[in-house]
């Protein structure tokens, strides 16, 4: 009996908290790496929100007399090839990276989970067709696909997000379908049917909440992936267009001046890495918090 505990129950089981979301957050915060990740993410979000307040200069303000300047008291991270303050550009760049990361991961998740739910719950032909479509998507390397889509859709922030979602949903669909196949066989689903709950309600009210845990982990890690891909797309010249600042764009331009101003490419690279690592840490922490079998192991390591 007890070994049948479903991941979803695990959240609720953690110390006497009535609110599963709060209990989950607490469990993640106790995870050492995840708490580091949470702090980094919180900082990045504050930076993105308060960029206009925090940035010493406008990200577009050029100072052609101080091009590629080394770090100084005026420009803490130096300036770029047009004399713009690098720190300010990175602070503003956080907005683009976080926006693309979070929105595209969420959009992919929503589309993917709904499709996966339907595939897993309906089964049969519907399932077979949807899964063959996702298989087809798996044949493409993600970066190439997203690059091609971005190129086809044209540059711009929305199009990067759209391109990402067009690919990302397949991953979430497969994940959700697998989880649905597990959950729909559990007795409480049969019990719900036995009291006359209609199929759609069973899908969204009874199954969906029980598959949220792994989806949450995937969304978090997906955000890191999306930030990386956005940087890659921007690095290759698609994505956001100048003069908008984005980490990938800065890295691209800085790359050209690697020898003259190494910080110009290192600093955005560090930002990208930090963000991705932070989201992955939190994703791992979530996974551990949601997996009752791993929880004991964590306790020992602390």
């Amino acid at each position, binding site marked *: 009996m007890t070994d*049948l505990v479903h991941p979803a129950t695990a959240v609720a089981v953690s110390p006497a908290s009535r609110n*599963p979301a709060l209990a989950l957050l607490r469990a993640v915060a106790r995870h050492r790496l995840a708490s580091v990740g949470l702090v980094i993410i919180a900082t990045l979000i504050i930076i993105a929100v308060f960029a206009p307040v925090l940035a010493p200069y406008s990200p577009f303000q050029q100072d052609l007399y101080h091009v590629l300047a080394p770090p100084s008291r005026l420009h803490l991270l130096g300036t770029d090839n047009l004399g713009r303050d690098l720190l300010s550009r990175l602070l503003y760049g956080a907005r683009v990276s976080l926006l693309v990361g979070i929105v595209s991961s969420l959009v992919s998740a929503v589309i993917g989970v709904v499709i996966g739910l339907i595939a897993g719950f309906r089964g049969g032909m519907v399932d077979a067709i949807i899964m063959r479509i996702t298989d087809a998507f798996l044949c493409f390397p993600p970066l190439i696909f997203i690059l091609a889509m971005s190129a086809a859709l044209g540059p711009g922030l929305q199009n990067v997000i759209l391109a990402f979602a067009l690919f990302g949903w397949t991953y979430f669909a497969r994940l959700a379908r697998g989880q649905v196949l597990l959950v729909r066989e559990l007795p409480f689903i049969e019990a719900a049917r*036995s009291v006359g709950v209609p199929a759609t309600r069973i899908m969204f009210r009874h199954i969906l909440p029980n598959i949220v845990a792994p989806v949450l982990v995937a969304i978090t890690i997906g955000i890191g992936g999306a930030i990386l891909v956005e940087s890659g797309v921007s690095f290759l010249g698609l994505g956001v267009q100048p003069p908008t600042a984005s980490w990938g764009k800065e890295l691209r331009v800085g790359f050209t001046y690697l020898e003259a101003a190494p910080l110009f490419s290192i600093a955005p690279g560090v930002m990208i890495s930090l963000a991705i690592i932070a989201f992955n840490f939190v994703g791992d922490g979530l996974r551990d918090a949601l997996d009752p079998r791993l929880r004991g192991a964590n306790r020992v390591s602390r």
Partner: protein
Amino acid sequence: MAKTAPEALLSVRDLTVEFATDAGIITAVDAVSFDLQAGEILALVGESGCGKSATALALLRLIADPPGRIANGEIHFRDRELLSADDATVRDIRGNRIAMIFQEPMTSLNPVYTIGRQLGEPLQLHKNLRGDSLLAKCLALLESVNIPEPRRRLQSYPHQFSGGMRQRMMIAMSMSCDPDIVIADEPTTALDVTIQAQLLELLQAQVANHRAALLLITHNLGVVARYADRVNVMYAGRIVESASADEIYRTPRHPYTIGLLRSVPRLDQPISEKLLPIEGQPPNPLDLPSGCAFHPRCPLAIDKCRAEVPALTRHANGHAVACWVDVRD
């Protein structure tokens, strides 16, 4: 075959349920017919795999399809035939007119919702109750099954309930819409022996209060003796004997029933009486013996048993038995 008694609340005719497996088709329920009268407690008894749970699920069309399939039969409930009814009609009956209590109280509740939310779901669906009237009704239901501090308990999650409490909550939920029939599929198997009796008493009292009929599925003959009005004994997907509970105990007529009764200790017989197991194993459902499925294990089997399937034949006192041999001889 018995003629449909006019007052039967539920009458099942030739119900056949099949499951497709890799090895072939299993006929889990084979042309089962029985009636359930309003307000009575009918027990469906048999060992694991004899088709009693499949019968119960089929009554509400809950057989998972695939791999299962209701291949044949009719289920008349009041003026409706359920197997040909549309989904909306069946949904409207489920949990409302015919309620079900499952074997596993630990897993029959959704772990992410509070007890209150789940208890209220049939009332929302079928009685359109919302807000305060829903809350009041849920409180009354929990109180009626003796759950202390019902107001606080409505906010609890299933993992905070013990197995016995969950099953009591399931009983409360099954009663919520004043059903005509409650189907209880081994409701106490997963529980401690000490609270099994408590729960069955509660279930008996509840169905009596709500004037509901109870289809009690069990493998426990002790339970049958104490609570059931009538008994259907199933073996390998068929009903082999049907009689009042008293008759079954005093004058069992099918060799399988006799074997079952000899294999459990009885308070009304001297302790020195030996318990006699039924020889052999339950048949492989993929490869049922010819004729009467019980003949390989039957001490009284004659040649006819190997060749022809005996029909359930009605005798005096509503006692029906499917056997070629008259054990009284």
